[in-house]
């Protein structure tokens, strides 16, 4: 089926199979994907309710609101990243397989981004328009959110791996990840608000891209190490 008998299937085969498995699981339980998305939309509606319907104020606060809501929605979804695998014992099987754990961790993280980061990015234009952000800023918002959610998925996977078997894991995960996620929030929100104000914003996008590349090359290793430690 996958490669010749007697040979360890290649890394890409394994990565693809991990992705396929995770996506299939989300398909079977769409709530896992939709709940954070609804949460994102709801938090975004909370702000106009709390601040009053002044359009000027809303447009001014929009980048910050969207980014904070996205960060919280990502955190919410991160909690379940390794939880069910830990509960049903399949995580132990992954650890006991000869395939490098980094690849499996990367596969799971990529799947996490596809099912929670990407939907946020796709939903954001609608919210941005509701917040009266200028049309030209929407593209900036989408690219910044894309880069930022990739970083958050990667960074969050380390936290999720560290807290996987713990009783008070949920609250702890936010405590661990939020301070580390602040650069992403700063770069992301400031990029969008600079763009909305008509300033140059390229610096923020470059910083986000650099962060995403750095996270992509380092975080899977930390996640793999953390998974081994958590499962001892």
């Amino acid at each position, binding site marked *: *089926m996958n490669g010749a008998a007697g040979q360890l299937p290649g890394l890409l085969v394994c990565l693809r199979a991990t992705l396929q498995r995770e996506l299939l*699981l989300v398909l079977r339980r769409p709530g896992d994907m939709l709940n954070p998305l609804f949460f994102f939309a709801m938090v975004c509606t909370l702000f106009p309710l709390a601040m009053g319907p002044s359009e000027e104020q809303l447009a001014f606060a929009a980048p910050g609101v969207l980014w904070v809501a996205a960060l919280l929605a990502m955190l919410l979804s991160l909690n379940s990243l390794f939880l069910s695998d830990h509960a049903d014992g399949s995580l132990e099987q992954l*650890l006991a397989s*000869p395939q*490098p754990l980094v690849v499996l961790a990367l596969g799971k993280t990529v799947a996490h981004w596809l099912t929670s980061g990407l939907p946020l990015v796709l939903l954001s234009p609608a919210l941005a328009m509701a917040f009266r952000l200028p049309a030209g800023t929407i593209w900036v918002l989408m690219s910044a959110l894309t880069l930022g959610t990739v970083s958050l998925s990667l960074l969050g996977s380390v936290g999720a791996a560290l807290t996987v078997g713990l009783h008070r894991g949920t609250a702890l995960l936010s405590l661990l990840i939020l301070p580390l996620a602040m650069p992403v929030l700063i770069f992301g929100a400031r990029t969008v608000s600079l763009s909305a104000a008509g300033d140059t914003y390229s610096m923020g996008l470059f910083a986000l891209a650099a962060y995403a590349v750095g996270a992509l090359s380092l975080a899977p290793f930390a996640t793999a190490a953390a998974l081994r430690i958590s499962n001892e």
Partner: protein
Amino acid sequence: MSNTLSAHKLTLVRGERCLFKGLNFALGSGELLLLEGRNGSGKTSLLKAIIGLLELETGEFQWNGMPVRSQRQEFLSASVWMAHRVGMKPDLTASENLSFESTLRPLNNCDIEEALERLGVLRLKKLPLRSLSAGQQRRVGLARMLIARATLWLMDEPFTNLDREGRDLLTGIISDHIEAGGLCVLAAHQDVAVDVPTQRILLE
């Protein structure tokens, strides 16, 4: 090719408790190692230490005379572990679970359908695992051993949840594996009637 798994002066500490100290064994092709002892005596921990999930305090395992530490990927490619839990996703079907598993290890010539057929659960392959009984889930879990090209089988209480017919089937599968030159380390709290060369370790 003949294989050996040996343990040298193992000491394993879990939290505050020392599970065993200075444990040795040597297992060759065509042999079964039975781990006996009451609950909590460290059978599961020993299996987890072999597969590398637990770190030993002191001592080492050797595979074919070489430290496992220096050839982890080769060693894991040659082993498959059946844990206490089935370790598959309850939301996926048997064939989905197994086709994912098949990318984790080198494969045997036995494909998924054949394995499920032999274990008597082929007709259930399209059902999500959660809708199967505990015994049926266990049989699906056993298919992992059949599709993998692994010489070393590590089994933790494999007879749990199996009916008499299932136990006989499993006994047959284990003895076939061992007669074909495989190795098996099996933890069980009841006696196992497999007619193959057997070593026993009693953990206190």
